[in-house]
């Protein structure tokens, strides 16, 4: 379902949300006015649908009038009533069918379709946002920063190793570099408009290279892409620091993404399958000291997350 998310209509909606927020009002309004699809709202769709229906009804009435007139002519000329299409050709064919087999076949087909649909529903449910890639307030490219410039993920997402959230960097983290990097050379001596958004948020005067005093700072409202429902608890540090999982395992080839999209399904079986396969590094963590001794004694080498209780409900749901 969410694959449609990229559709322009949604962008328009997001943009309209932006338009109502005080933050980045100017930019957002620009986006909104530039986007002609904003006109195409949900109501428009309904109106079109209604019109279609209306035309169909009119067409049907016209057809009935025509066939009625045809009938009258036929009766006048032949003295018999004209056999309908049903009488003429459909019924003889229908009569050749074995009702049981037909009924069974139709039932089987319907049953199969229902089953497949139910299966699909079960496997996907709704709300899977895989591929979700909304427009962000700043056209930030991971491809440039993480890919080309090879900045370590944890430089910006600094809390990934010790907190639940990996956290989106605050604007002053950006400023560590962008105090100096403003790409004036590419924009005819002006600051790059995207970088300028950071300056506007934090209150940096690029002309004098200093912070504006008593500037009313405004946070940058990024659109959250990975929306794990609140009923499941996910902790970045558990995976990044303790489990030593690479960022790319879940977030995909982020260093190649110009615009970030949701790489994984974030569905439960996706989590569970990984937990079933990945093993715990019991050897190098003193927390597991006793367990490690015991496993050694038992001669076990692989100890998966599942064996460590990683597929138990209350590991994520509480």
């Amino acid at each position, binding site marked *: 379902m969410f694959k449609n998310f990229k559709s322009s209509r949604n962008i328009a909606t*997001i943009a309209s*949300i932006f338009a109502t927020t005080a933050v980045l009002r100017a930019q957002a309004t620009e986006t909104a006015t530039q986007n002609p699809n904003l006109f195409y709202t949900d109501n428009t769709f309904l109106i079109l649908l209604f019109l279609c229906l209306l035309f169909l009804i009119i067409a049907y009435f016209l057809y009935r009038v025509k066939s009625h007139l045809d009938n009258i002519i036929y009766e006048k000329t032949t003295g018999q009533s004209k056999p309908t299409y049903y009488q003429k050709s459909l019924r003889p064919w229908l009569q050749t069918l074995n009702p049981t087999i037909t009924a069974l076949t139709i039932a089987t087909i319907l049953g199969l379709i229902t089953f497949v649909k139910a299966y699909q529903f079960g496997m996907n449910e709704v*709300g899977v946002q895989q591929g979700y890639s909304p427009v962000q307030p700043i056209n930030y490219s991971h491809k440039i920063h993480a890919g080309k410039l090879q900045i370590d993920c944890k430089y910006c997402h600094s809390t990934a190793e010790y907190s639940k959230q990996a956290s989106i960097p605050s604007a*002053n983290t950006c400023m560590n570099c962008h105090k100096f990097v403003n790409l004036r050379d590419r924009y005819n001596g002006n600051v790059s408009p995207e970088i300028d958004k950071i300056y506007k948020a934090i209150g940096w005067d690029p002309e004098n290279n200093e912070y504006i005093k008593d500037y009313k700072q405004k946070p*940058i409202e990024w659109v959250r892409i990975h929306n794990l429902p*609140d*009923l499941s608890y996910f902790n970045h540090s558990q995976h990044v620091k303790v489990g030593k999982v690479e960022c790319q395992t879940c977030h995909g080839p982020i260093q190649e993404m110009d615009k970030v999209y949701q790489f994984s399904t974030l569905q439960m079986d996706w989590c569970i399958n990984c937990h079933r396969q990945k093993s715990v590094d019991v050897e190098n963590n*003193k927390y597991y000291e006793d367990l490690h001794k015991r496993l050694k004694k038992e001669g076990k080498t692989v100890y998966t997350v599942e064996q460590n209780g990683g597929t138990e409900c209350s590991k994520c749901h*509480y």
Partner: protein
Amino acid sequence: MENKNKYWKGIEEAELHSDFIKSKGNEFSEALPVEEMLSTIDSDLSSNRRDFLKFFGFSVSAVALAACNKAPVKFAIPYVEKPQNVTPGNPNYYASTCASCTSGCGMIVKTREGRPIKLDGSNESAISAGALCAVGQAGILTMYDINRLANPLENGDEQTDWAKIDKKISSKLASIAATFGGIRIVTPTNNSPSFANAVNIFKQKYPTTEVITYDSISYSGILLANEKSFGKRVIPNYNFDKADVIVSFGADFLGTWISPVEYTKKWTKNRNPKNGTMSRHYQFESILTLTGSNADIRIPMKESKEGIYIISLYNEIAKLAGVAQLAVTQNAELAGNAIKNSAKDLFAAKGKSIVVSKSNNPEIQTIVNGINMMLGNYGTTIDIDNFSNQSKFVEADFEKFVSELSSGTVKGVIFVNSNPVYSYHNSSKLTEGLKNAELVISTSITKDETGSLAGFVCPDNHFLESWGDAEPKNGLISFTQPTISPVFNTRQVIESLLTWAGAMPENAKAYNFVKSTWSSLGDDVWNKSIHDGVLIKPDLPATVPSFVANLADSANKIIFSLPKGDETELILYQKVGLRDGSMANNPWVHELPDPISKVCYDNYLSISKADAEKNGFEQNDVVNLSVNGILINEIPVLVQPGQAKGTYAIALGYGRTQTGKVGKNLGKNAYPLVRTENGYYSYNFCGLITFEKTRKKYSLAQTQTHHTIEGRDYIREASLNQYKKNPSVKNDEKLNLISLWEGFDYTKGHKWGMAIDLNKCTGCGSCVVSCHIENNVPVVGRDEVLLRREMHWMRIDRYYSFNDDGTALTKEKQIDKADASVYENVSVVNAPMMCQHCDHAPCETVCPVLATTHASEGINQMTYNRCIGTKYCANNCPYKVRRFNWFKFNDNDKFDFHFNNELGKMVINPDVTVRHRGVMEKCSLCVQRIQAGKLTAKRENRKLVDGEIQTACSAACPSNAIVFGDKNDPNSEISKLFKDERSYHMLEEVGIRPAMMYMTKIRNTDTTI
């Protein structure tokens, strides 16, 4: 702004936001001036962590569609400048001081992304010593109360701003001072050095100023008696931990008396049968108090007879000590041998005993001092050198203030967080008097009875938003630091006073002022003190004071004022949950059942069975009460076992007419019944009490309606003698538990368990509230409690047994047959009850969809998002600890407590899901804390330390009755407790193998019942 083609998995997912703090100011109701909040950035603070702007921080915000089932576009808003010590997703802890009552407990405030979400006791403070009472913990919700004043008020309801109001107030104060009109600052017992400092500055500007201390509850009897006896108007430091024999006359020191957390901590230290330190506790009282319910020997006594009991006790001890007895002109009724026995015990434990009394009569307290003096308790169990500052209220000052008001000599009054219009017994006189005043200012944070009469209301900050200090004990300074910047446009009282005194704005800032008060400390000590929350000066050596009072005189006075006949009497008392009523708008304290009566939400006329039979009353009857001409109409009746014959009791603190929607008009106000007697407030009345039974019925919302164990042995108790003979008394019979299957292997990793010591649990309810807060348990309200649908994950079962000539009656039928007088001889057991996390859990087997299963660490897991709500598990739970979400308790205006407004929701623990309607919930053993604790250890590459992980209940318990830990760790405290002879599994015979163990209650009585 809906996205029509985006769906969510279910309505509950969209609604189960635990982090739903809105990012936009206009999402709040108009009463929340976010813009102002944003502008008041305390730039002078070293860190910006308390800033409200920052608290939006990383929080995920569901912008437009909180109540819609379409997937909202969620924003992730990072900090603009990330404060150094705030990590989104990790909690921060700050030390501060609790100000929900005057005890001054040190506390630790847990904050997440800049908002406080949990209060716990601080280990550093000698008063709280790691625990906090139910009321203190509930205090956090008072800050997130939507009914708080958002702005200063003028002329009743006009909202105004600080600059305007300051100007008006300053000019008025100046004109009053100029005409030598009196200015009075009325404050509850205030032991803050900075406040005193501020008042001094205020006084310099307005010299006619005086500070009047006013508490709703008076302890002046002790103050005055000590003044009389030792020349010191103080409350001494009671060391219950050093006492081997405790005799208390009505003093509910485990529940409400002066500093309950501190006393509970100390009392339980000496309740340990294992190493022989087991005190003997006598309690003489008329109503069944929490302390009485925990006493070894409890003797019902009419409170009016207290004086003669105490004199008799004095005489008995004097007899033993060979000292002159007091002349007694009237023969005392001595409650069997109780006085004699207690005298014997006290004398035997000379210097290691303690006698306390609830009485507010200085003469009685003087005799009590005399007894303690005679027993040599001063300097050991009672320390008058390191005295307590927790109550300083003396009636005479306030009475003088009221008469000055009436006479018009006082022109300006500043009520600092005190509400005498509600709690002063002669409220109409005060109200009339206030009309004479030119300037009345109230600083209460919600509009209360006093505030509604005040011309100006200058709302104080909540104590979680304030800088401050307190000196609850001489030499123990406890600091308060803000953990969030003010939610509303409020200002600390210190700042207000300083501003009105014309101090420089910079100096008037609370932080600067408090720091300047302690400038002598130097920065290092100051920083450490703020970090620890306390500054401890070394204790003075406890000395034995010289006793100067005339005991015979006091005894004569007591005997003179004794009631002549055997009249009925009325007792006014505080409930453990609500105390004096100042937190009446806090739903958590209302939902907390009274530890004794188990009634939520109301006060009632508590009467004994004998009196009920005499008057033809039944429980839930409604009566009109007339006491000495003062009427209390339509108060329901509760028949209370243990209550002394001929006594009636009503709890104070109810019947608030001006407060938020939760507490408004709940119960009846009993303060008008408080009586002045020889200048002190008396909380009992003996004399003309008439009842008129109405035809109405009013159901009291009780969470427990059956009160005895019916002779079952899941609650085990024994006497100390029995225990000494055989430590495993009552647990001798070891069950041969067989299983049809091989069990699961719980030996690798952890196996969590809990040991609950019935001997230590006092039933105070601290764990109940702590669990309530930690786990986002909804408040359901009186109607739902009446339907028996309270949601508490953790409850305390209270069982009565009755002593009928040495035989214990626990069965309903026996008790019904027995004489009504048996109802007086009650013993009580409190059993905290929560999910027992059975290894062979009956609930798990019956769930059709695997919503509840077992973890390898021994936790019975409840997966809310899988639950379909068949309720079968709850039926199959022998402990009945599972709770069902009957309605959608959050975002539901029918449940207007705190879950349905944005501000109240800030108290929600973001690590715990808010449950949707139709799912089962129960104690999770605070799995979020276990997971966090384990993760920290893993991250730090170390083993888990025993005691590192605490559940909310075990952390909150003031008596250490609840111990949580890893059974697989042979050195953990819990492994040791599990091997204790007293430990047993409740309902072990059912074969469900609980992970919790209870420990037999030991009573230090000669005989057991």
